[in-house]
């Protein structure tokens, strides 16, 4: 949990007339904000589109996040900066935050948007909490489910609330953090990468040797190799030389094969409801295909997937 340090019992700034600036204080509201995670704060700040700097402290560590026009522009945390710093802070599970009156960093803003940062952070946290052997599991991590609005989520999507009406953050004093109304976290657009990841993928050499596998790729080895051979034969019957690709629907699964110029065949199995374009993107962007060819085929006689690239996430 992260909280702003403002005492909720302290007098609220300009309670009688929020718009008054007679006292020199900025307009707006004051109060306590309690966020279940720093990700909530990031969403609130980015959705409000304000320009502000926030100091985050946790267990003796501290860092700064700089928000401007719906983006995290800069982040600093110890020796880390930008994305690394932001991810470091987002990994903290408890602490305090407050608005900081800092000079704006003089460097080019971060390229990653806040949604990517939150998802990367959530994924890192879940992977760190998971046993190493399950790190490549395609199931979306729990914290990711919280952050993104998964397409197949059983819960109905929450309606978008109107964005805050708070005007630009005042160039406030160090302790006068304007109050942010607490409202449900607005779901972020679903990312296809988590839920739609292939269930299994395997890269086969021209003679069926396994060059790499991911997920449950082992069970695709024989099927992929034989289907590829049949596709070649079918292509010949149809007047061609060899197949270059094949895709089919098999019950609740979708099987895709792509054969490259070197005769390697990448077989990927996804869920049926994965959009075909997404599935094809998995084929074309698969890290398996970009790997250099293995020096020697994997010995499959022991029925395991040992060797170069096998079983690695």
């Amino acid at each position, binding site marked *: 949990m992260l909280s702003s340090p403002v005492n909720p019992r302290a007098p609220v700034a300009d309670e009688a007339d929020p718009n008054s600036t007679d006292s020199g204080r900025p307009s707006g509201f004051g109060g306590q904000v309690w966020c279940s995670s720093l990700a909530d704060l990031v969403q609130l700040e980015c959705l409000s589109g304000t320009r502000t700097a926030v100091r985050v402290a946790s267990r003796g560590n501290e860092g700064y996040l700089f928000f401007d026009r719906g983006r995290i522009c800069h982040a600093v945390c110890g020796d880390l900066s930008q994305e690394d710093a932001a991810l470091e802070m987002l990994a903290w599970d408890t602490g305090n935050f407050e608005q900081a009156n800092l000079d704006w960093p003089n460097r080019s803003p971060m390229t990653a948007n806040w949604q990517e940062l939150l998802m990367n952070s959530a994924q890192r946290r879940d992977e760190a909490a998971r046993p190493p052997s399950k790190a490549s599991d395609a199931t979306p991590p729990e914290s990711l489910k919280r952050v993104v609005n998964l397409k197949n989520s059983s819960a109905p999507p929450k309606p978008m609330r109107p964005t805050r009406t708070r005007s630009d953050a005042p160039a406030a004093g160090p302790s006068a953090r304007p109050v942010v109304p607490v409202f449900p976290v607005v779901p972020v657009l679903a990312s296809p990468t988590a839920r739609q990841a292939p269930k299994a993928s395997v890269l086969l050499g021209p003679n069926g040797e396994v060059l790499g596998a991911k997920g449950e790729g082992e069970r695709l080895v024989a099927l992929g190799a034989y289907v590829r051979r049949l596709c070649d034969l079918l*292509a010949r019957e149809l007047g061609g030389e060899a197949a270059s690709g094949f895709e089919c629907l098999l019950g609740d699964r979708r099987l895709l094969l792509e054969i490259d110029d070197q005769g390697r065949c990448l077989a990927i199995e996804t869920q049926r409801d994965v959009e075909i374009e997404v599935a094809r993107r998995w084929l074309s962007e698969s890290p398996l295909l970009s790997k250099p060819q293995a020096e020697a085929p994997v010995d499959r006689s022991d029925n395991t997937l040992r060797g170069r690239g096998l079983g690695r996430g």
Partner: protein
Amino acid sequence: MAKWRLRELFWRSPDDPTAETAVEPTDGDEPVAPSNEPLPLLRDVQGVLGSLVISPGGAVYARDLPPNFDEHKTARLAQRLAQLYETLAGEGGHFEAGTLQYQGHQFHVSCADGGLIGVLTEQRVNLPALAMALKVVARRIATAQMTLSAPRIEEPA
């Protein structure tokens, strides 16, 4: 759906005066002649070069393929297609449809009642239109099957 139904739809007795040249069937039944009625519909779609209908066992029920696909070649193609279907259907999932890509062409396979429809196309084909045309063809097949399977009412003597 029973295999014979699809077969009955596409094959006619050689005694039928409208029948074309008799073709030896590959699954051992009496010689019958092909009726390719619904298949030319698919050629209406841009990029479609031809099509055929086969049984899951590889018997050719109907064909509307380019002239270079003679009887022998078509039979071999059907056997390969059946082999692929058998492989995929045996992997625990119901095979519904597939697309093979090879040198500038595609071969689409769609599962119909009691058989498979294969469609040869160019690389650039109007896929949504092809999907719809396949639905229409499949519907025609289903309608014809229902007609064939309906009990006949004998006229009183």
